[in-house]
């Protein structure tokens, strides 16, 4: 763009068709929800899930037609396809998990599903954006919807309080991100990632300004992925939010944040890698250790899963610190397995909850193995995957991540990560001990009476097993996604970071 003039933007509606479908569906659900009664809530839910599935078709159709659209601000590449598909899947799973929950808890269905769709829209925008302002807009579209969802059970003091804490700390982090973007704009003169990369490669005479900006953007992302010391909102928000939304936050928000984080830092700020990888190294070590150690002390299942989500963000940051192509591919693969496993775990928690009988504490799960053998088996499998037991998705993901980090010479960080994995086994297995080896607890409703939830748990379990036992196609897809993003940004050699 020439200075002083806003050039005519090349519109390419096909590039944003999936976003358009989700946006239109969100508005339709919102309008229909205003007229629909509580009994039509499930129909709105099914419509939302169908719209999310429909949006996946144009996403798939854009495979192999990589390009930059809208004057270089939207990237259509295998990378955005990969993340958009996983985000659409995670959002659809959230809707399926919510169907009965929304009705039982007396939540307004139209607004609930519309907000899930708007959040999905923001997440997809973050995955596809190739411009810092667009990433900011996607992030805010997602965050504002998720803040509202966290406080959706607004007559419950805990839900409202969770929303307030999440909102205040989230908006605080937005301030850092935005100020960082402003400083980067000052140093490089552009916010589009392609020209930014070129400007960095050419060198800038405002290096201090640039580094301040990058540091502030890093803080902003660290908040969103729940990295220590910016994780304080996570356990409160997950515990107070409606349970399906807690799962959505743990998976969807993390997917979108890592998609943008990796694209900005890994692909485009590679020239500054020696500075930010050192910071990420420390943050990764702190995040894993704090997440796992505090999880040990938790009595509430949702809160334990929140700290577990922090710990997993730490493992993913190990990959960011490694900063190689291999590590980036491992992050993509890990996130896929993580999405299935964690959504499944939260779906099981939803299955255990009913109005008045919230399965709050791990002690409530005692004897579940005898009362609900199917659900218990699913929970066991998902928790074992989160621990990192072979041959499940969690194990293979960690294997790839840690191997990539070792190849980049981060021996000590990998040692810390492996020790953390061992520690994490204790609190995951503690749940299984309660389920299978102790007596007492609270009765649960049969899962068969809730088909959508049954489908969601089944899909999560199936995905966790398949992705772990047959990793090859998923690893290949992750690699192809990364190569596509790299070739779009630099037609030269495929190297993420010149070490």
């Amino acid at each position, binding site marked *: *763009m020439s200075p002083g003039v806003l050039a005519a933007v090349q519109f390419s509606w096909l590039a944003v068709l999936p976003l358009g479908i989700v946006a239109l569906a969100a508005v339709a659900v919102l309008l229909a929800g205003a007229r629909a009664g509580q009994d039509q809530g499930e129909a709105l839910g099914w419509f939302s899930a169908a719209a999310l599935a429909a949006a996946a078709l144009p996403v798939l159709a854009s495979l192999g037609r990589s390009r930059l659209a809208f004057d270089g601000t939207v990237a259509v590449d295998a990378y955005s396809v990969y993340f958009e598909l996983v985000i659409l899947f995670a959002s659809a799973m959230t809707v399926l998990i919510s169907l009965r929950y929304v009705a039982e808890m007396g939540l307004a269905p139209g607004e609930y599903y519309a907000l899930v769709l708007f959040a999905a829209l923001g997440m997809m925008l973050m995955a596809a954006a190739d411009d810092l302002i667009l990433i900011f807009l996607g992030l805010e579209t997602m965050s504002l919807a998720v803040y509202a969802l966290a406080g959706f059970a607004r007559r419950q003091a805990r839900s409202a309080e969770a929303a307030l804490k999440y909102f205040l700390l989230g908006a605080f982090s937005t301030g850092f991100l935005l100020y960082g973007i*402003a400083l980067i*704009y000052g140093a490089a003169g552009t916010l589009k990632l392609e020209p930014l990369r070129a400007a960095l490669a050419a060198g800038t005479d405002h290096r201090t300004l640039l580094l301040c900006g990058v540091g502030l953007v890093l803080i902003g992302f660290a908040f969103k992925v729940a990295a220590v010391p910016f994780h304080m909102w996570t356990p*409160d928000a997950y515990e*107070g939010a409606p349970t399906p939304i807690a799962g959505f936050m743990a998976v969807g928000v993390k997917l979108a944040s890592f998609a943008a984080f990796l694209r900005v830092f890994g692909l485009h700020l590679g020239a500054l890698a020696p500075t930010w990888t050192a910071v990420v190294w420390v943050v990764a070590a702190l995040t894993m250790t704090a997440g796992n150690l505090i999880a040990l002390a938790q009595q509430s299942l949702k809160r334990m899963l929140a700290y577990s989500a922090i710990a997993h963000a730490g493992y993913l940051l190990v990959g960011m610190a490694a900063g190689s192509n291999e590590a980036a591919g491992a992050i993509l693969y890990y996130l896929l397995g993580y999405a299935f496993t964690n959504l499944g775990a939260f779906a099981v928690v939803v299955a255990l909850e009913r109005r008045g009988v919230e399965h709050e504490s791990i002690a409530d799960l005692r004897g579940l193995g005898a009362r609900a053998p199917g659900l218990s088996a699913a929970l066991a499998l998902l928790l074992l995957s989160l621990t990192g037991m072979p041959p499940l998705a969690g194990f293979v993901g960690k294997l790839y991540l840690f191997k990539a980090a070792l190849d980049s010479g981060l021996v000590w960080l990998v040692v810390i990560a492996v020790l953390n994995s061992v520690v994490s086994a204790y609190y995951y297995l503690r749940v299984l001990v309660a389920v299978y080896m102790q007596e007492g607890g609270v009765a649960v409703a049969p899962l068969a009476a809730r088909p959508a939830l049954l489908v969601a748990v089944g899909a999560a379990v199936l995905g966790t097993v398949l992705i772990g036992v047959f990793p090859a196609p998923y690893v290949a897809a992750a690699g192809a996604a990364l190569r596509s993003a790299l070739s779009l940004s630099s037609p030269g050699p495929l190297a993420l970071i010149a070490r």
Partner: protein
Amino acid sequence: MVAPSYYLALSALLFGIGVVGVLVRRNAIVIFMSIEVMLNAANLAFVALGAEAGSVEGQAFVFFVLTVAAAEAAVGLAILIAVFRNRETVNADELTLLRW
């Protein structure tokens, strides 16, 4: 013509005031106001840096930020009201149903 570094210094000062405000004040509404100061510090930086670069881009970004800030205010104040109805306080130190 005032040198751009003065604008940047002012915006950095505003940003600092916002950050300190978030960290030391306990009333959720004041915390939220401090966050708005941070966003406006970024706006000032965008305008100043855009003018220095001789591009309207910097000023165009401010419109996006203003829109987002307005939406954020709507959602944030709604959440504040929901909390106040439940608890009759918006003091961050008294919101302890969930441990910080």
